[in-house]
Structures are given as structure tokens and as C-alpha cells.
């Protein structure tokens, strides 16, 4: 027995207008400080009917801690919203998920947001997510990442924090800077590949992973070359969301476990971190998932394809500018080397290790950390 869970997904041109059809009385709009005064936020606010009372929470930093996430909680409780609307990338959407859960259940700890606890949310409010990046898949996932002060990323997950509605409007990502377009899309590619070989994989997650790669792989180089290519933008946007549905209904793997550890210690973009390890993880897993990797390898455009998926990935990443080693990622090699013990410990605690295609012990993880030096 297993499940497939998804929000209601609204996608395509003008998808944002769907907001006006919702029965909203009071909405908390959770976004990051960079979007607060932006065309994107103007568009969102214009899509919400005038009679709806809104409160904007825009103090979200990238990779926020729980203290940062919950800074506005008492004001939110006083405001008593019936909707949370997340607008932004993974950090803003994850923050909205956590605020939504804690607003609904002030008696629980953030650490209770696990698949093992029935939270009984949605007694007061609902949650919509509007991504302004194409990659995290958070708008369609049951996961949220919270950073801890001491440099660990905690992976929260619960079916109950999956948004009720995901709105994928491509006009919101057309101005996404090149580097962010690449980093977030690499995250989505990693979601799809890890979900497809996760030990929890299933027919539904397989279908979404394959389609996600079909949509993203040929279009990412186009967008990096011509950022205003709306058709390519839209396909990546939908593909990233499908990759989110895929991993949310199966699981992530070792590249995410290691990427979370690296990102927590070196404060680097999440997509860059997971992409740094993905080719080496695929190489490690190859004997356990050869047929599956072979199927995915065939989805890559011909000009990148090698016999093995890990080599194909390296070709593809090299072309789009995704770093393949720590130096290319701008990491100080000496500091990296002196951090490896801690990185191995952090990565070993991630659930991604448990559901990786191949059992990986701490020595395997250490080897991969060394492999990208």
C-alpha cells in the first residue's frame, strides 16, 4: 500500500488569475525580502480581490532558521487568516508551510512536522503556493527544510503541509536571473533522478520524473541562452513542479543528503550543492539502478549522451555551467577538506541516505565528498 498525493495544480499563462476565484477573507502572503517590492508581488496583489484583507510577511532570508520563520507568528495569530499564500522560491514556500502548521497547531513543535505524526491541520486555514523559481518543487511537495543555528538542515515532511493549491504562472519566472534559473533547474533535475531510483519509487513517481526530465532537459539550455523564451520557461516551470510531485511521492536520495550538508555549512544555493554531487552519486548507485539510469539517460538530448548517465550528466552540467567540483563552486578547498568529517556526519543523518538507490555507509559518503575536490 502506498499513496499519491498532490495539490490542485493550476498552470499556464494567466494562472495567477485563479486567485480571484478563491473564497478568501484574510490572507497572509509569505514572501522573501527581495520580492516584497517587485513586479511579481504587484502581480500577485492585483490578482487578489480588493475586499480580501492581506498581511504581507516579507522578512524571510534564504535558508531560514525556525526563529526567522516564526518572527511574525504572533502578528499572524492576531490577524487570524483563512489562507496562507506563499510567493517565492523554496525558502518562502517552506516558511509558509511551517507558519501554516504552527498557526493551525500552536501546541506542536516544528519537529513534530514529520510523516509519523497526525497534525490535523486545516481547521482554520488553507495554503496556496505560487513559485517564482522553477526548481524546488516545494509548491507540490510534502517537505520543508529548516536551517538550525548550529549548521544543520532539518528535513520536515508531512502530507498535511502539502499546499492545497499550486499556481504555476510562467510570467512570474521570466525575469529570474541566469544563475538562479540554472541552480533551481538543477535541483529539479536532481529531484527527478533521485525520485526515479529511490527505494520508495512507484509508478506515479516514475511517470512524473520521466516527464519532468523531458520538459526540463532540452529547455534549460534554451532559457540560459534566451531568458525571455516563454515557451521554454513554461515547460521548465511545469517540469520542476512535476519533479517535486515525483520526489514528494517517493523520496530523495544521497545527492540531496550531501547537498543539504554542504549547503548548511557553506551557505551555498541548494541546487548548486545537490548538483555538485549528483554525477558521483549516480556513479556510486549505478550497479543498483543500471536499468533505471539507462532509461533516464535516453531522455537527455543526443548531443550530451554518453553510455552511462553519470557521464551524460557531467556533459550536460558542463554546458549549462553547473559546477562539477568544489573549486568551480567557489568553495575554498582547504576549508572544505577540514570540514569533511562534519559534512559526512550531517549527510549520514539525512533521510535521503535511507532511501537512496544503494545502501551507502559513511565511507561511501566520504568518498563522494572527496571525489568532487
Amino acid at each position: 500500500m502506498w499513496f499519491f498525493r498532490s495539490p490542485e495544480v493550476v498552470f499556464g499563462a494567466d494562472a495567477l488569475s485563479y486567485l480571484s476565484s478563491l473564497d478568501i477573507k484574510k490572507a497572509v502572503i509569505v514572501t522573501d525580502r527581495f520580492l516584497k517590492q517587485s513586479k511579481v508581488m504587484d502581480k500577485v496583489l492585483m490578482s487578489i480581490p480588493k475586499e480580501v484583507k492581506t498581511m504581507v510577511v516579507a522578512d524571510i532570508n534564504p535558508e531560514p532558521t525556525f526563529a526567522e520563520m516564526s518572527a511574525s507568528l504572533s502578528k499572524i495569530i492576531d490577524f487570524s487568516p483563512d489562507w496562507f499564500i506563499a510567493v517565492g522560491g523554496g525558502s518562502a514556500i517552506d516558511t509558509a508551510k511551517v507558519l501554516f502548521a504552527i498557526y493551525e497547531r500552536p501546541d506542536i513543535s516544528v519537529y513534530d512536522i514529520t510523516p509519523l505524526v497526525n497534525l490535523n491541520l486545516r481547521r482554520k486555514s488553507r495554503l496556496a503556493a505560487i513559485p517564482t523559481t522553477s526548481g524546488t518543487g516545494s509548491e507540490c511537495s510534502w517537505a520543508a527544510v529548516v536551517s538550525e543555528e548550529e549548521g544543520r538542515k532539518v528535513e520536515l515532511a508531512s502530507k498535511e503541509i502539502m499546499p492545497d493549491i499550486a499556481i504555476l504562472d510562467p510570467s512570474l519566472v521570466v525575469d529570474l536571473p541566469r544563475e538562479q534559473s540554472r541552480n533551481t533547474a538543477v535541483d529539479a533535475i536532481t529531484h527527478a533522478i533521485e525520485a526515479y531510483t529511490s527505494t520508495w519509487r512507484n509508478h506515479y513517481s516514475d511517470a512524473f520524473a520521466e516527464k519532468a526530465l523531458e520538459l526540463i532537459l532540452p529547455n534549460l539550455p534554451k532559457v540560459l541562452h534566451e531568458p525571455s523564451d516563454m515557451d521554454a520557461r513554461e515547460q521548465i516551470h511545469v517540469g520542476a513542479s512535476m519533479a517535486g510531485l515525483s520526489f514528494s511521492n517517493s523520496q530523495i536520495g544521497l545527492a540531496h543528503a550531501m547537498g543539504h550538508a554542504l549547503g548548511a555549512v557553506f551557505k551555498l544555493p541548494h541546487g548548486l550543492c545537490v548538483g555538485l554531487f549528483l554525477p558521483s552519486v549516480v556513479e556510486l548507485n549505478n550497479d543498483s539502478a543500471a536499468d533505471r539510469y539507462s532509461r533516464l539517460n535516453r531522455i537527455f538530448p543526443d548531443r550530451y549522451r554518453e553510455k552511462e548517465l553519470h557521464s551524460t550528466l557531467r556533459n550536460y552540467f558542463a554546458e549549462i555551467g553547473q559546477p562539477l567540483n568544489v573549486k568551480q563552486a567557489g568553495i575554498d578547498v582547504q576549508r572544505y577538506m577540514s570540514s569533511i568529517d562534519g559534512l559526512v556526519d550531517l549527510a549520514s543523518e539525512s533521510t535521503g541516505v535511507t532511501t537512496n538507490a544503494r545502501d551507502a555507509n559513511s565511507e561511501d559518503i566520504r568518498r563522494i565528498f572527496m571525489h568532487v575536490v
Partner: protein
Amino acid sequence: MLITKKRLSQLMVKFPSPEWVEEYAKKLNENQTYKDAAKTWEGDIMFVVEKDESFPKNSYIYLDLYHGECRKAMYSDSLENLPKAAFTYRGPYSNWRKLIDKQIDPIQGILTGKFKLEGSMMKIMRYTKAAKEMVNTATLVQTEF
């Protein structure tokens, strides 16, 4: 060396039983992957095998686990005979059987309602690899149901 059917049955231990628990603890302490995954774990756990149509009584397995080592393993038909544990993992006998036969993943087992877990979720979510290895170890015990 070929093992005859008769010899195999002599090697097998009944689940749940004191002999099974003893054999399980031995295998767990031999499992280097578990030792690695649980090297910072501190806490005891109670496995509760609940009665169902295939098994007539509740049974309890207490494990004192510390830094990748099983320091104590006890079996009882009564909870009163065992120390109180920080974590409890419980489910009906038939589901335990499927777990040991690797037909159920230990975490998916909770998500699908086949097992229940009590204890600090924050702590246990950092040790899912160790939990998986505990189940893998159970599959190494020559088990008779």
C-alpha cells in the same frame, strides 16, 4: 557445506521468543553498517508485537541501544517485567512478519498505519538509516514464524 532441512530447522528460532531476541542482539552487534549509522544514538526502544488472528498474545522486546551497540536485549510477555523505553515501535504480529520478510519498509510501515511509533520524532528522524539497518538485521536471523 550443504545444510539439510532438518539442520536448518534446528538453526531457526521462533519469532518472537527469548532465543530470537538473543540471536537478533548478537547479529545487531555484528552489523557494522548499523554500528556506523547508530554511532551517536543513545536510547532504548521497545518493540511491541501485538496479538492478532495469527498470534494469541502481546509480546515485548526491549533493546538498550547505545552508540551502535545493543547493550541489553530482553523478551517478555508482560510489559511490567521490562524497563520503560524512550521509544516504542508497535504493530500486529502479521505485520512484524512482513517487516522481517522485507515486505514492509519500517518507515513506510508507519506512514501506512501498519506500525505506530512513540517517542521523540525529532530524534528518530535523524536515525532512519539506523532504523533500516535494525530491520535488515532482523532479516539475517533464521526466523521461524
